[in-house]
């Protein structure tokens, strides 16, 4: 992993080179997180590139990315570690003969207990430990970027469980004791604001809010990701998307939708936005029928206004 980050501009440049265009605020967050060893809580509407940010940061720092996807009911055995029960059972079966051999020459109960006790340790050792993402991140040989995706989907208990990890980069496992991070990972948490996160969690993180991009930023993103798209068409497209975002819709189009649409237009060899074309491809941008209907109503107005300009 890259250990030195010179400046915020350094981050921004590297991100741009990977095709992740961001504003200064986002680059600043990554810079501060790496320098202060603080997790970043990334919030924002879906599809603005929260997960992408973690990927870009991993590429920038030349560190592997470990991802933990959260969902309701996620618990420690899925997130942290689990014992390989099957292997343990198999081993006890296979070792049964060996076991009776070991115990054959003991004459007292205490002696057998002691020998079994020694053995017991072996069953709760690394051989039978199945590390899950969090433990993998802590025990990695090199610093990693850890992405805890959609933390708002996990239960409140899990959030509380994360606190130790986020503030001290360590986690307590009853059978093994406290596992401290060999190298402090750079942690990103993302949230779609499905429920309010606890103050304790927020306190431990830097807070970054990524809004929908404004027109210039979105144009830059499009130019970078879909360079084949004609420049004039790009302006039109961004203009239209920005217009849609001002409407009262169930699900507003995000950057990912803009990109999808742009790619589709390239495939269709379109060179300007025509009402007919928009109508046919609208479902790429708006995933809700009511929204699409509203957009169809808006279309003529928008075209008229645009022509007038």
């Amino acid at each position, binding site marked *: 992993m890259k250990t030195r980050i010179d400046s915020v501009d350094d981050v921004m440049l590297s991100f741009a080179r990977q095709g992740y265009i961001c504003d200064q*605020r986002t680059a*600043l967050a990554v810079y*501060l997180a790496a320098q*202060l060893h603080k997790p970043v809580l990334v919030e924002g509407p879906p599809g603005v590139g929260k997960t992408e940010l973690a990927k870009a940061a991993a590429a920038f720092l030349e560190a592997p990315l470990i991802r933990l996807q959260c969902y309701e009911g996620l618990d420690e055995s899925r997130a942290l570690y689990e014992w390989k029960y099957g292997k343990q059972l198999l081993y006890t079966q296979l070792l049964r003969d060996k076991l009776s051999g070991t115990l054959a020459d003991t004459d007292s109960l205490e002696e057998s207990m002691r020998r079994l006790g020694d053995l017991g340790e072996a069953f709760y050792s690394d051989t039978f430990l199945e590390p899950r993402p969090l433990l993998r991140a802590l025990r990695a040989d090199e610093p990693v970027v850890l992405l805890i995706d959609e933390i708002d989907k996990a*239960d*409140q*208990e899990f959030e509380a469980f994360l606190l130790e990890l986020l503030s001290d980069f360590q986690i307590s496992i009853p059978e093994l004791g406290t596992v401290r991070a060999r190298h402090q990972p750079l942690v990103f948490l993302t949230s779609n604001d499905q429920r309010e996160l606890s*103050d304790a969690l927020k*306190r431990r993180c*830097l807070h970054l809010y990524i809004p929908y991009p404004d027109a210039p930023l979105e144009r830059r993103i499009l130019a970078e990701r879909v360079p084949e798209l004609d420049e004039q068409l790009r302006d039109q497209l961004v203009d239209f998307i920005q217009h849609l975002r001002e409407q009262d819709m169930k699900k507003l189009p995000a950057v990912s939708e803009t990109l999808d649409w742009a790619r589709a237009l390239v495939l269709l060899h379109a060179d300007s936005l025509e009402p007919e074309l928009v109508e046919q491809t609208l479902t790429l941008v708006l995933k809700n029928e009511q929204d699409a209907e509203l957009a169809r109503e808006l279309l003529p107005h928008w075209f008229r206004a645009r022509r007038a300009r």
Partner: protein
Amino acid sequence: MARRRLHEFVRALRGAGVRISPAEAEEAMRAAALVGYGDKNRFRETLALTLVKSEEERPDFDRCFETFFRFEDQQPGEQGPAEDAAEPATPTPPDAEGLSPQAAELAAQSDTQLEQSLAQAAAEIDFTAMQVITQQGLFARRLLMNMGMGAVDDEILRLDASQRPGDGERAEALRDWRGRVRERAMAHVRRQYDLHGRAHGRALREHSMQAAPFRELREFQQVQVLVRRMARRLARSHQRRQKKARRGELDARRTLADSLRYNAVPVHLHWRQRRRTRAKVLVVCDVSSSVRDAARFLLQFLYAMTDVLPRVRSFAFAARFDEVTEDFERYPPDVAVGRILDRVSGSGTDYGTMFKELEEACRGDIDQNTTLIILGDARNNDLPAGERHLADIARRARQVFWLNPEPPSRWNSGDAIMARYLPYCRAARRCGSLNDLSRFTDELLRGLN
């Protein structure tokens, strides 16, 4: 120096309602030191990243930041903030000739220099000690003294006393100049009061708002914000409880019975799961003029917690009775109340008829999961009480609560007939202030989850 300024800024932010822990403040210092103070935008974003923990607080932060770091804005040689119309006019420096060196130095300062000495003098004063609005004069005076204006005062006195011709006019000019500088200082102190003193005042005001009778609440401007915040806080604490109650404990009986199949090895564990009842809440509000304010706050409270109370149906009645669920779901509380009043207002509340209509309107919706909340003063205008209908509803519903905005001593005075309805209510509470309301909602949620 920078540390102290930042600490003051953190205090100002806390005053604006942003919650910041000492550890976060410390973090912000480290971050700021790392990024530097040169680029104002970057500096602001750095502080925002470390201090602001939700997007809702961002506007407060931006406002605070702009007010707080105003002086730092002005680079030497640059003109003062010309766009600010409230700024007192630039004092024209008076004739410095023949003054004492200290006073002469001050009087000779250009506008920008003056602004800077003001800023320097201000930095030495701890404005966070300012708590009430009347302290502003004192602090302005202290600020001027720090600037060395004492020397100017002495000069004015000396010129006044002097017999030389022309000294009288010069004293006048100097006094004029001093007045304008003082205005500047006052403007600065006012800004500082906005940042620091307000916080103290606001805490005090919120405290009194929570205890004030609903009727008087209309005079407070910030009440909407406060209500929303109280409701959110309550909802958050109950969200936790709700999740916790969902976890089951081991059902020993079923686990043991099941284990018999496997030679008494408990292969399958069974958990006792608390059945989550889907609580339904029906609210009926009297919106005649005497109770209207309480009704507005109760509904606002309940609808601010849709994530813990997903199913609320509300009804309003005065002259007529109507369902108002949709109004509150679709419009902000103020608009909703207006719409509702248009529909149902009038004089002569009739509780008996209301209960009858309520029973008809939600016959299918009243079962053992239903909680009915009635808000009203039970002033029935000497009409038939109709408690038979309430009895019917109470029998089928899980519980009935009655909220009365009046003190218990008046529940049965005049045409009020609380006593006729009380036997069918699980509890009747007085609900005359936000505190009462918050306490009741807390109790309600505790019982429901």
